[in-house]
């Protein structure tokens, strides 16, 4: 591992972080009479070299926003731009990590990570070095010859992170990537992921429904309204990095932000509860228990 410092330099040098502007975007589904507007006059910025976390009640239209950002779908009106250029379709400058693992089962960890460079015919000395560096970074060096089926859920997510990062996207978009992992693995993943972010300072956009996850990871927190989705509040998480779960529990600023965020989410949940959402009822109940405890 003596070569690591040199590789680290090459990793940093190859990153060209991007900035995404979402300006008054509208998106709806269904035809005229039964049209549901999912995203309504939504505007925000995913700032360069920052980790922006978006949190909102489930079913609030976050996944629709992701499809728009990735370019799988186009907005009805409004604009989405990356570094000033309009987003017109899927491309490697905006890689998306989805909820379920999409590692190729027939490739080893190593071949999965090198998929992108090979696909583009860019299998160079540097890309192999970078793969080696990332493999170590996500703690999978001994698992390079294993197939995804032989890896645990957490390892799979880490392998997928490495596979995405080797392509040097200008923006990485992660859609609840740690959902379904057990609590301990999840916290371990937060640490892996935030270290990777701190080292590379790539622009990251992370979507979650977990307030602890959001506060652990975010530079900026976007709190979304219920459907049709809009940004309800933006909070700068000015808690120093690197963070640990233990330190966050005792950090007054972090707790203050948490309560602030939860009360906004609670308001949103109440609104949809009064419109008849059962999922919102669960949230309202969980929230009131949590507030009375603290």
């Amino acid at each position, binding site marked *: 591992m003596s070569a690591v410092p040199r590789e680290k330099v090459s990793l940093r040098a190859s990153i060209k972080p991007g900035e995404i502007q979402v300006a008054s975007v509208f998106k709806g589904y269904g035809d005229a009479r039964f049209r549901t507007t999912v995203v309504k006059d939504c505007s925000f910025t995913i700032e360069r070299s920052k980790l922006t976390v978006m949190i909102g009640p489930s079913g609030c239209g976050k996944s629709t926003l992701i499809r728009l950002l*990735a370019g*799988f779908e186009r907005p009805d009106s409004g604009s989405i731009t990356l570094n000033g250029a309009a987003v017109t379709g*899927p*491309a*490697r400058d*905006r*890689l*998306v990590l*989805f909820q*379920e693992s*999409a590692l*190729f*089962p*027939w*490739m080893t960890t190593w071949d999965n990570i090198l*998929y*992108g460079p*090979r*696909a*583009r015919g860019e299998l160079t000395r540097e890309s192999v070095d970078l793969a080696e560096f990332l493999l170590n970074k996500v703690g999978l060096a001994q698992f390079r010859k*294993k*197939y*995804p*089926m*032989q890896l645990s859920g957490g390892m799979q997510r880490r392998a997928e992170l490495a*596979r995405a990062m080797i*392509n040097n996207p200008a923006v990485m978009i992660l859609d609840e990537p740690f959902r379904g992992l057990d609590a301990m693995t999840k916290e371990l993943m937060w640490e892996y992921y935030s270290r990777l972010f701190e080292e590379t300072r790539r622009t990251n956009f992370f979507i979650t429904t977990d307030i602890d996850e959001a506060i652990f990871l975010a530079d900026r927190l976007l709190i979304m309204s219920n459907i049709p989705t809009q940004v309800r509040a933006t909070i700068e998480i000015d808690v120093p990095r690197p963070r640990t779960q233990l330190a966050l529990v005792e950090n007054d600023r972090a707790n203050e932000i948490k309560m602030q965020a939860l009360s906004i989410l609670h308001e949103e949940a109440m609104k949809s509860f009064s419109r008849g959402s059962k999922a919102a009822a669960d949230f309202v109940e969980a929230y009131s228990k949590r507030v009375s405890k603290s």
Partner: protein
Amino acid sequence: MSAVVASAAAQPRRPREAWWRHPAVRAVISIAVFLAVWELASRLNWPWIGQAPAPSKVLDAWIPLLSDQGYWYSWYQSSRRVLSGFLAAMIIGIPLGLAMATSRMFHDVSFPVFEILRPVPPLAWVPAAIIFWPTQELSIGFVIFLGAIYTIMLNVIGGARSIDGRFFQAARSMGSSNWDIFRRIILPGVLPSIVVGMEVGIGITWNVVVAAEMISGGGGAIQSRAGGGLGFFIWNSYIGFSYPLIVVGMISIGIAGWISSAIIRRLGILVTPWLRLR
């Protein structure tokens, strides 16, 4: 106290699995019981099954054949035909299946024809095969080929269709070209289904070998009873009223089919290493 220690020391004996739980032992038992019931049925002249020659009679007929070149030549002939028909079915069936799975247009144009031809049994093709093909060997190979190709194609199409859409999305966003996706996503994704299709397909080729070799009339070895292939061997024994030999032929085909499937299963495990490691 010491008694407790002693019993703890005696404990580490690993519980040995009962001998009769071993699959090989069970296989031997199953075959032995089958043969015993058959022998009994034949000796006691039970209705229906009592008509079949007893295993001992079959064995009596079989043993001299083991040193008979003609018998082994039948094995060779049938294996050669099955293998070439089967290879042809793969060489043509796998690319056709892939084309049907990946191209909507090609699928729409070719699938109706495929679906109409598929239910026609290989046996029904025998007269046509004799007329169409210039040599007997080609006619036989063609019938065997028909036995395997539909299964292989159906498995390829089904396998390619069942590849998870997320893999394509991931590959595309990482910059894959169509060719790259075909080579590194579709091909390996469909490989397990190809193996299944091959395993089923080789079984069917042995199923149709009797029908196919009826064409041959001995494949140039009419005078000796054997030599025309195992399928012809059965047909010829039937014409010659040698019932034990019919059974010898049947069992021979059974064994040949079992060996072929076992080889393909092994090959399948070799080419899909990601499936065996759970």
